[in-house]
């Protein structure tokens, strides 16, 4: 018998993620999987297929919509959920704004940090005891220390100094009513692993991940997209160049990168030789403080 004893690194990462998803299913009563239409959560859906098909997913998909998303991504999200035949729940920041639970200082303010309000409202509305997310530890320093199963108190807060020890692959997802877990099946993946997996599995992505012409303004070395939400200001030099997005999110705070890559292989080649981290290249709101992510996560941010 010639059995290969060593799995390739993608096979290993996939097996670990499937195991984590099944632990959520086995331990939690009412979980949900956060699906944004972004590349990380697209991988999560494929992993869920591998974990649970030919059965149905033992959880619905949940999207917290900032209402500032690119329409291509929203269309993709709806189509993907329909193709899978799985239930998609969408909760919008607009509803929280209408309810008065989110108060914006200006209508175009970045909505990133307000997502946690709507998210926690959804947790309460549906009584979710676990949210599965596509966060990776390589994204940011505070994330590098977060557990695969991460405990949230009734205010949705993460306490980095008081995390549950996590040994071997024995995860502890027990919570009381009102508290919940966050589970991160692709914690150990890097951006490159994600792209390699997308290539291997032939996963479809929203079109804005590939090169397209877009009007942008250069700001502090980043490319700020010119959109209806974020029109050019007086004195801005608007250029139309070839760009693609490395991550998709709230329009006012997600920057594309200059690129002519129109296939996954070209994106992988760029990612393997890139000089700037995903967050550094694409986040217009994150550079204020080294600790800003840790702070936001403590407040319940994803």
């Amino acid at each position, binding site marked *: 018998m010639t059995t290969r004893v060593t799995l390739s690194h993608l096979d290993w990462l996939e097996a670990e993620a499937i195991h984590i998803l099944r632990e959520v299913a086995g331990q939690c009563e009412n979980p949900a999987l956060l699906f944004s239409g972004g590349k990380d959560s697209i991988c999560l859906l494929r992993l869920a297929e591998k974990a649970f098909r030919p059965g149905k997913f033992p959880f619905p998909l949940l999207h917290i919509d900032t209402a500032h998303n690119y329409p291509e991504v929203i269309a993709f999200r709806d189509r993907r959920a329909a193709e899978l035949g799985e239930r998609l729940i969408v909760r919008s920041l607009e509803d929280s704004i209408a309810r008065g639970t989110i108060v914006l200082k200006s209508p175009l303010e970045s909505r990133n940090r307000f997502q946690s309000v709507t998210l926690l409202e959804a947790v309460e509305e549906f009584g979710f005891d676990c949210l599965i997310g596509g966060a990776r530890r390589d994204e940011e320093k505070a994330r590098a*220390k977060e557990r695969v199963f991460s405990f949230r108190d009734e205010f949705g807060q993460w306490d980095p100094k008081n995390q*549950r020890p996590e040994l*071997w692959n024995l995860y502890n997802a027990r919570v009381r009513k009102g508290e919940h877990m966050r589970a991160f099946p692709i914690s150990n993946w890097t951006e490159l692993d994600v792209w390699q997996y997308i290539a291997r599995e032939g996963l479809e992505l929203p079109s804005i991940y590939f090169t397209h012409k877009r009007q942008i303004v250069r700001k502090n070395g980043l490319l700020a997209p010119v959109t209806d939400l974020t029109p050019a200001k007086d004195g801005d030099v608007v250029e139309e160049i070839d760009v693609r997005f490395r991550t998709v999110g709230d329009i006012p705070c997600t920057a594309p990168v200059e690129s002519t890559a129109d296939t996954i292989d070209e994106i992988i080649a760029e990612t393997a030789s890139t000089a700037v981290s995903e967050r550094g290249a694409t986040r217009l709101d994150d550079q204020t403080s080294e600790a800003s992510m840790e702070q936001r996560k403590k407040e319940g941010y994803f």
Partner: protein
Amino acid sequence: MAALERIQDHGLLRFLTCGSVDDGKSTLIGRLLFDTRTILTDTLAQIERTSQRRGLSAVDLSLLTDGLSAEREQGITIDVAYRYFSTGTRKYIIADAPGHEQYTRNMVTAASTADLAILLVDARKGLSVQTRRHAAVCHLLGIRHLVVAVNKMDLVEYDQAVFERIRADFQDFAAGLGLSDTTHDVTFVPMSALNGDMVVDRGEALAWYEGPTLLELLETAPGAHGDAAAKAEQFRFPIQWVCRPQASDDPELHDYRGFCGRIESGTVQVGDRILALPAWIETKVKAIHIGGQPLTSAVADQSVTLLLEDEIDLSRGDMLVKAGSNGSTASAANGDGAVPEVTKQLDAMVCWFAETPLDRSRKYTIRHTTRSTRAAVGEIAYKLDVNTLEQQGAEKLAMNDIARVSFRLAQPVFCDSYAKNRATGAFVIIDEATFDTVGAGMVV
């Protein structure tokens, strides 16, 4: 597809860095990331700014790993940080564990998933109490591959005699620990993490050293189920989830009943004779699936779905193993190791994590593979002084203590000794009041 080929695969290695505070762990990780070009320019710019703000003369690579604000304030590593890099042949997951004694529990956590440990020693200071403690913890947690990195060689003029002395000291100590040549391998590398000698590049200063660089050692080290000891592992498949599509209108899926789980050890093939525990029912593997796609065989670490010849009612927490050579029920007794021990009694080395000490009058929940059961604490045979390895009598078990403890269980578990099998020999202890994970155990 140039990029894809360049990142072709020799699997994945998980390792741990440990050693006393200031021996250079964070610097070494920074060096590995830097010299394998994993650090990206904006991250580097950020730590350069921080280094300058603190008035440091050179870039402090340790800032890469110390991520929590409390850690940056105190300048020490408190929690385990995970880092990633890839060389083109292999992907690495590094666990950077804190050195202080009050964080022994974090080191135990980091060691639990590591295949290899890098133990840093400051060439000027030689083996310290902490070095010995960390070696003992690595041994206890079943890490079979140890690299002793004699660091800061630049501060002892790259003197070979210093290196040889530390090597001899460690070998003495390792013999006392019970690290035997047949089950463990210990390698020694002289280096300067600061200057980069013998980490990724050989450098010029250590010409007398002819062995591999640290990275060469990592590239060739056996992975989790790749070494000789692991090849003797038996098939263990704890059931996590049962897939029942219950599609009454689909004749193919109507009776589909798939047992989902991760192969913790060993291998399985279609047609293998299987024993289901605790039912003690024997059957055969009809098919192996991942996401509905068939495979003919599967190996340790893979997450698969097994379909069985006979319809048996199994659920999460049950376990599939290979039926022994002499028929199912007899095989446990005939000792070929195919069947794990089925027991309501556990005798284990326990590391305590919680601030509240172990309370022998209370009941706890034990999680072993995918099974949970209530447990009563029996005897504390002794407490281990992790610095001297002395056994001491103990009534209590406080945070960071390691002790030999027995438990009585409400339900049986299917276990092997931890030395034989890290998956079926391990469990965690959960406090039934707080739901916190308060301890971890390794079956003796």
